[in-house]
């Protein structure tokens, strides 16, 4: 099912680009790359590694693996509108409906034979324990070896060395189980591409910060978290360049992503993955733009291509979910100030400790700098729990509230 889906998606996008004489928006190019990630995963010929969100995908790519975080499958199934039946399969084997639907979808997909059989699995202890549990279950389901990266919560030199050592061990583990040896020159070239993409992406986000922003609500939706899957590839560099050039062009032409932009918002954690009208409501009725997603943040330094393991470790530890809530809140405050947002939306994804456990602290932290927060309480994957009227009322009331109060940046 998903093999056909990704193949058809790729064909459709390619033919649409051809019809436009080879022209494509950066978002279309992004969708094409995501379709190709899916196609590689489901090709049946590539060596696949199912991973946690903070795994070093470029390192695994350099070692000849097609790697992906498992939640990608949950998100894709949600976007196809077929996730309900698959989640039910996970429920049948005992999962509670209060468990994160990303992970129930992945579990259901594995049971139904919708997950490609991996060569190995790489779990990560960050960002969530639920994801690690799913990977452990998948390792048992597929009877395949599992390597767990224990991501330290601090960021001391000792912590970095500890994780870098594990990443070196990971290369040995991959070699043992796939026969693929680490080629230092190939890894160097991959990391150089990662660094090029990083520089360009920083430019992209700097351009997006402008007021009005050249980005629209779709451009950077689910962006960086999925882009991590192609880090290290030439295509990632090209895609980042396309975004940079398009945003620069829009700014030069006084073209804003949302015409008449009035309200700037931050989306905390992941977006809602299934089709829903909320972003259109924001854009069409309130001229509101989600100008920054929490996960569209590059808080890591360039990686040394000759000795990348410390840099890769620092990158895995840099995600704002790692460490204390205080650290995460400071990161959100920084983004709020950098992007001059008027409000933040926290979906509080059902069953997600990162999404719901800290919501009061996040709300209080952002309110300290004058930024109100809307807690949505939405299941971002299972559309059967989505009641449009309820969510629309909350979003619209939040917009009305922002409109009737002074901007935090006045």
């Amino acid at each position, binding site marked *: 099912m998903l093999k056909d889906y990704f193949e058809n998606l790729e064909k459709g996008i390619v033919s649409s680009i051809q019809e436009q004489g080879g022209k494509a928006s950066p978002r279309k190019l992004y969708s094409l790359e995501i379709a190709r990630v899916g196609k590689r995963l489901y090709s049946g010929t590539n060596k696949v590694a199912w991973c946690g969100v903070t795994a070093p995908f470029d390192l695994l790519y350099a070692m000849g693996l097609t790697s992906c975080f498992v939640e990608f499958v949950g998100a894709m199934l949600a976007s196809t509108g077929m996730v309900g039946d698959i989640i039910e399969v996970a429920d049948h084997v005992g999962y509670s409906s209060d468990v994160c639907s990303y992970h129930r979808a992945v579990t259901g997909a594995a049971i139904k034979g919708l997950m490609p059989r991996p060569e190995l699995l790489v779990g990560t202890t960050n960002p969530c324990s639920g994801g690690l549990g799913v990977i452990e279950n998948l390792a048992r389901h597929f009877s395949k070896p599992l390597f767990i990266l224990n991501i330290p919560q601090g960021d001391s030199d000792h912590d970095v060395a500890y994780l870098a050592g594990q990443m070196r061990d990971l290369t040995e583990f991959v070699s043992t189980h796939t026969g693929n040896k680490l080629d230092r020159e190939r890894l160097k070239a991959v990391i150089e591409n990662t660094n090029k993409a990083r520089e360009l992406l920083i430019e992209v986000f700097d351009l997006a910060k402008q007021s009005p922003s050249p980005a629209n609500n779709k451009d950077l939706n689910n962006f960086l978290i999925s882009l991590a899957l192609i880090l290290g590839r030439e295509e990632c560099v090209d895609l980042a360049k396309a975004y940079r050039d398009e945003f620069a062009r829009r700014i030069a032409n006084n073209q804003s992503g949302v015409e008449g932009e009035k309200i700037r918002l931050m989306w905390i954690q992941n977006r809602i993955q299934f089709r829903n009208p909320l972003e259109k409501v924001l854009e069409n009725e309130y001229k509101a733009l989600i100008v920054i997603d929490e996960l569209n943040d590059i808080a890591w330094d360039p990686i040394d291509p000759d000795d990348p393991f410390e840099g890769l470790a620092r990158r895995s530890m840099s995600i704002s979910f790692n460490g204390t809530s205080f650290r995460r809140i400071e990161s959100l405050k920084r983004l709020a100030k950098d992007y001059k947002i008027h409000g933040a939306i926290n979906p509080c994804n*059902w069953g997600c400790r990162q999404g719901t456990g800290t919501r009061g602290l996040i709300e209080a932290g952002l309110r300290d700098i004058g930024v109100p927060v809307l807690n949505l309480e939405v299941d971002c994957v299972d559309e059967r729990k989505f009641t449009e009227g309820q969510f629309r009322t909350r979003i619209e*009331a939040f917009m*009305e*509230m922002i409109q009737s109060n002074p901007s935090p940046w006045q």
Partner: protein
Amino acid sequence: MYYLGIDIGSLSCDAVLIDRERNMVATSVVPTGARNREAIAMATEFVLSRAGISRDKVKAVVSTGYGRDRVEEKLTSVTEITCHAKGIQSLHSGAKVLIDIGGQDSKCILMSDKGTVVNFAMNDKCAAGTGRFLEAMARALQVDINDMGDLDAGADGALTISSMCTVFAESEVVSLIAEGAGVNEIVKGLNRSIASRTVSLIKRVVPDFSGMQFAMSGGVARNKGVVRAIEEALDYNVFVPEIPDTVGALGAALFAIERSLQ
């Protein structure tokens, strides 16, 4: 000229007609039922006939509530959160915290001195503790929902209703009746459980109650027992307008004046 506010909720459709001096001229509350367009027409017809004016004297209509987009002749629609805040400010300007419990949701709204919404919270995930919840409990107790407001009076203590899921609470109530528990004590227990849930919602928005004046709107505010339980839990008085159901529609009517002048 006159201005009409219509609040189409899950249980009732409320209409308020005001004149250009912002005086309330007529109100109506009709059941929404399954066909909300019919309810809208009925509520409109009632206020116009009560006021003795024809439709062409209405300069602007603003709608609110879950069915707000169903009002075809609206100038605009505004959410019930903003409308309830607007409405209560015109009735009690000192109110800073509004508790609104309607048919399927409960809200706590914090307002500025100017009556704008500063923060709000709504019930999440389920509608326990709302009007529908009370309807189900009245059915289980075999009492008229309109009589429930006085049934807590004279209760010899309150029974604990441990669950706030409507279905489970209903079966719990049925079990209590079967065990011979008194209706008054059960009702008092239900009121307390709603109050406890409501105060949790308020605390999310207003961590410190000092200097706050509370008000309550929505159909559940007609239930004096629930209001008493909330006052006890808050340890503050709660202002309840004469017709709490129509506060949202009043706010919508006030927006009709403002928006038609823009």
